[in-house]
């Protein structure tokens, strides 16, 4: 099937099979490698992308479903310059192996876009579908909370 896909503001014209999963098409056909293959059944969150600004498991979306929607991956978030959140993740040594990081950056980006000064519970909720086996989450949560505090300072 013909598919036109918008990934990080670039248009792609692709020929895909209905059974092709969006995650695989992004990685193998578009070359966008930040969404990772972790479980392929929606449990781990490492394939998280944003579709129209909403975090979605790209392993649970058929590529043909993405027609007409805007897809954002972490390559699109930090393309020109890193976001404040990304800088805080770096300075806080938030990640270890980094495999879950692209998904977590996107889930946290979605959260901050809708809720600029989230509570600790809000952050835990937003990240609850992104499994991280290394960090115990604490340094990740702290960085998102710090990003929220900066938002508060800016708006104050």
């Amino acid at each position: 099937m013909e598919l036109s896909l918008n990934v990080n503001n670039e248009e792609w014209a692709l020929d895909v099979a209905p059974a092709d999963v969006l995650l695989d098409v992004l990685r193998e056909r578009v070359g966008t490698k930040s969404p990772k293959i972790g479980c392929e059944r929606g449990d781990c969150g490492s394939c998280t992308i944003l579709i129209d600004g909403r975090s979605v498991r790209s392993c649970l979306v058929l590529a043909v479903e993405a027609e007409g929607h805007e897809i954002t991956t972490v390559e699109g978030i930090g393309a020109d310059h890193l976001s404040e959140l990304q800088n805080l993740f770096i300075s806080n040594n938030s990640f270890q192996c980094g495999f879950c990081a692209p998904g977590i950056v996107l889930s946290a980006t979605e959260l901050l876009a809708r809720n600029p000064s989230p509570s600790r519970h809000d952050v835990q909720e937003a990240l609850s579908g992104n499994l991280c086996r290394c960090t115990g989450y604490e340094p990740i949560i702290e960085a998102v909370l710090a990003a929220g505090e900066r938002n508060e300072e800016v708006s104050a």
Partner: protein
Amino acid sequence: MIAHEFAYERPTTLEEATRVLTEHSGSVRLLAGGTDLVAWLRDDAVAPDLVVDIKAIPGLDTIELDGDELHVGSLVTFTDLIESEVVAEHAPLLIEMAETVASPGIRNRATMVGNICSAVPSCDAGPVLMAYDTTVHLIGPGGARSVSIDDWFIGLRETACSDDEVVTHLTLALRPHGGVYVKLMRYGGEDLAQAAVGIVEYPGHEYRVAFGAVAPTPIRAHRIEEVLRGKPLGEEVIADAVALVRDEISPITDMRATAEYRARMCEVMLERGLAASHERLEGAGPAYGTRLI
């Protein structure tokens, strides 16, 4: 990667959808949020010839309040429910339930109607929709029809919806109420229910009680409702209701819990849930979304 290959259709009207479904009856699957279906395809748990994506059909994604009825379209996601002011005001129990479903990245796609169409025993929406006296509206080659949620679940992954029908929306009968959804999970993170109970108390000591994950389908607890009917809640009445739990449910032992733990926890959840829903009816009690266990 999905090894099985299939065809894909994206109808733009309900008529077209039912026509396609009729033509391929028997080997077709409807696709809405896809959080169950795509996982099942990947696991080879289903192998349809055709997948029909209903997301291009207009009008199925709305939440509308119409007098004392709340209409929830079949493309309404759990996130839509959580973010809806109408739902927060009139059916807050839907939000309490929706917030226990998986995690945001799933709730952004998964629909409540999809949840009851998948019809697994741990289906979160089931007990709450039963407690809200819900009607399911379908359309098929023979036209539109409606089914009470009490008659909706036929068996494991089996519903009253036939292969050539599409659910258009749900209607919840609204009255002032207090309610709870209590879900037993293995830990603090996302989980399928080990057991669950949905409770609504209406003014005049009228109650709805339904359980999840303790029978092949979500089940309405008529005997418990009967024993409670017309009685103000007190320790004794609650104890009478709790004493009936094991008559209502038929839990099994599986990897997620033993039958015995499920049964005991249904008792605990009913006891705490009745108290909380009563407090909420009176405008007090724990805020919706507070976990009782």
